[in-house]
């Protein structure tokens, strides 16, 4: 391999990936004085470059519905059911980015500067010691090497910068954070909250905790209630790397962003026992380059970072970097969802709302918290998202008739309905895994990945409860025609894939230590979802941010002390 020796290939730090976690690593390292190179496989994208942000349905070809050719290009991303003209360019074309499935796995990705921080749902919840202690208490997987107290200051730290609107509740298992004023519940949600809280022990309903800004924050926002966040926000109304961490990192003068740079592997130096840099392919020229640094952060998202480690083969690491334990690629988790109930409610016909609130409700976990809430049929728990709303013209599907009267009716606010959508914890299981297929390379010469992962008995047992508990709450609140549903789909669909390079105390059973350093190559940090030792049931990205902030500060400190 040709080695490019020009000075520009030497940095203090390299960050692989520019999404939620990579943006954070970059900001902290660059602001900490490190000359930092951010490598991103996707195209360059700058804040404000959101061509579909202002389009109404009538502005889009075919009202936004994709053509069969486009559907073919996005044939796995479209399993979500909502890829359309307005958001497709923020997701990968599967034809160019193939992967295989021993069992169905929906790998939903965004390859561009900003990653999936542009398209994410922005729900942000802390984990607690109920989560960090669960593996050890139950003898599942391995113990987390950290506890809530280790992460709490870093949750504070990132929340203050990000800006999260939400309601403090004082629940030990869903710790409060640094909140901006909460968004409001509409009247049906408020009614449902009151009934649930007065009828059921340990059950609460609150407005979602979300990175949409209810007031100006660090020069961003506020949110204008358009609910078009997935296209990118010209108002900087929510948190993305593009709107915040990346531009702030650039202000330090220490950041170089190199887009179209597909990282293939981390280079291991046998003489120092550390990584020396990374190897990339330029996606446009197809040329190979090497870049060198003291510290390397892998933030290519769980599967991305894991596959880079797997493809980093050396005499020291014949099975992939950090893989002495054979756990690299194993314990793949997601959240299982699309299970719950919905119903209609009468009595609020004279009430309506204005604005498209980009947020819903949250019902925090209420199972297996303590002896009183313990279940015999499954471990761990779930939370619900969802919300209430009034139908607009889409009431056509359940409105009888045709003609002038029918037309008039469709123009009036329709029935109120509410949905509860469970998000459940998935247990780590070494047989749920992803592995490299060295016989099939992607267009950049990187071995493709194959998924072999499924939901198991604990998840399936939990779903029964997720379904009936949702229906039970809606019925208690007076909803009619309550319907339960359970649409299992496949892992990946929750878009919370994680766990494939887990943190642990012991190099024999884990890939990362308590500072997210790769066992055996301690100047390599992995701080995205790959690090997760268990999945909890909360949306995970806030935890990736806190882990990243903690590890990046640790790295700065270690560099200062000349330990790295």
């Amino acid at each position: 391999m040709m080695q490019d020796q020009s000075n520009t290939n030497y940095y203090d730090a390299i960050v692989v990936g520019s999404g939620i976690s990579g943006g954070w690593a970059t900001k902290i390292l660059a602001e900490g004085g490190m000359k930092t190179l951010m490598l991103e496989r996707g195209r360059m994208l700058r804040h404000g470059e959101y061509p579909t942000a202002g389009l109404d349905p009538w502005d889009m070809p075919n009202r936004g519905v994709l053509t069969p050719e486009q559907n073919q290009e996005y044939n796995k991303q479209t399993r979500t059911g909502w890829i359309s003209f307005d958001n497709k360019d923020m997701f990968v074309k599967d034809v160019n980015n193939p992967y295989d499935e021993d069992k169905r796995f929906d790998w939903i990705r965004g390859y561009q500067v900003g990653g999936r921080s542009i398209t994410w749902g922005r729900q942000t919840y802390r984990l607690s010691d109920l989560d960090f202690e669960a593996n050890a208490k139950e003898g599942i997987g391995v113990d987390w090497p950290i506890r809530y107290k280790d992460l709490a200051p870093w949750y504070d730290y990132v929340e203050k910068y990000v800006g999260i609107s939400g309601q403090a509740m004082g629940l030990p298992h869903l710790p409060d954070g640094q909140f901006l004023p909460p968004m409001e519940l509409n009247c049906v949600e408020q009614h449902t909250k009151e009934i649930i809280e007065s009828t059921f022990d340990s059950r609460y309903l609150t407005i979602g905790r979300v990175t949409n800004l209810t007031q100006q924050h660090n020069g961003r926002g506020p949110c204008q209630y358009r609910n078009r966040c997935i296209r990118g926000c010209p108002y900087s109304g929510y948190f993305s790397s593009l709107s915040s961490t990346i531009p702030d990192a650039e202000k330090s003068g220490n950041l170089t962003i190199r887009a179209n740079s597909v990282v293939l592997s981390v280079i291991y130096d046998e003489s120092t026992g550390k990584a020396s840099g990374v190897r990339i392919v330029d996606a446009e020229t197809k040329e190979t380059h090497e870049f060198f640094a003291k510290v390397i952060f892998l933030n290519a998202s769980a599967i991305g970072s894991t596959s880079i480690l797997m493809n980093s083969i050396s005499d020291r690491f014949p099975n992939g970097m950090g893989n002495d334990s054979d756990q690299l690629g194993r314990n793949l988790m997601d959240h299982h969802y699309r299970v719950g109930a919905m119903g209609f409610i009468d009595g609020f016909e004279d009430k309506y709302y204005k604005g498209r609130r980009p947020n819903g409700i949250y019902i925090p976990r209420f199972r297996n918290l303590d002896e009183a809430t313990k279940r015999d049929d499954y471990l761990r728990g779930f939370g619900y998202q969802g919300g209430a709303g009034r139908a607009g013209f889409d009431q056509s599907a359940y409105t009888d008739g045709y003609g002038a009267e029918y037309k008039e009716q469709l123009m009036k606010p329709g029935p109120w309905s509410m949905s509860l959508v469970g998000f459940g914890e998935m247990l780590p299981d070494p047989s749920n895994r992803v592995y490299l297929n060295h016989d099939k390379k992607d267009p950049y010469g990187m071995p493709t990945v194959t998924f072999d992962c499924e939901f198991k008995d604990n998840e399936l047992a939990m779903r029964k409860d997720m379904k009936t508990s949702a229906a039970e709450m809606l019925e208690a609140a007076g909803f009619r025609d309550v319907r339960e549903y359970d649409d299992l789909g496949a892992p990946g669909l929750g878009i919370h894939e994680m766990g494939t390079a887990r943190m642990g105390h012991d190099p024999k059973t884990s890939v990362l230590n308590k500072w997210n350093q790769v066992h055996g190559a301690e100047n390599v940090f992995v701080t995205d979802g790959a690090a997760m030792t268990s999945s909890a049931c909360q949306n995970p990205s806030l935890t990736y941010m806190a882990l990243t902030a903690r590890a990046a500060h640790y790295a700065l400190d270690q560099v200062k002390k000349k330990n790295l």
Partner: protein
Amino acid sequence: MERREAMKNMALAMGYTLSASTLASLMTSCGEQVTLDWPPKNFSKEQALNVETLCDAIIPKTDTPGAKELGVPQFLDSFIGEVMTEADRAAYLKELDAFIQLCVDSQGKQLYACDEAEKKAFLDEQNAQNKMKYPGIWGADMVKADMRNFFGKFKDTLVWVFFTTKVAGEEILPYDPVPGGYDACFTITPDTKSWSLG
């Protein structure tokens, strides 16, 4: 909520346009008016006449424009060409033909050739046979079996296309592209209309 909102729009489209069976149907206005003043690309002329009649019957002109004035039939003609595979389109048109035939069986003529009374008789029949759909959540279908008849499915697509025309979206329904805030609960009057953007 992003997912849910996006789904709400897509579901209307997909429920009927992307699945093997899709949109539409037929018929045109009453007996006298049996000419088509636009050249269909994907419908046959006869299918187009029936589609136009059906559009007009479901969303007629009132004090606001109807589906026909806003060019919905032409849009549907182009839409099925753009968003369906050839096989899906063929299946869809077959369903449309079957629907046209139902009218012939019932009234002795195609919908576009029916007079007002015949049209009403047939569409009342179709309406009575149509089953209500349950709204889906975030891409998960609440009801697996497809309970809508062609008339019902056509209605869903037509309504969605009609209310997402620029005229309906900006002038017929209250249009609020940048709400700027959230009023969680206000009391409406009998004249309050639903928002154009969902």
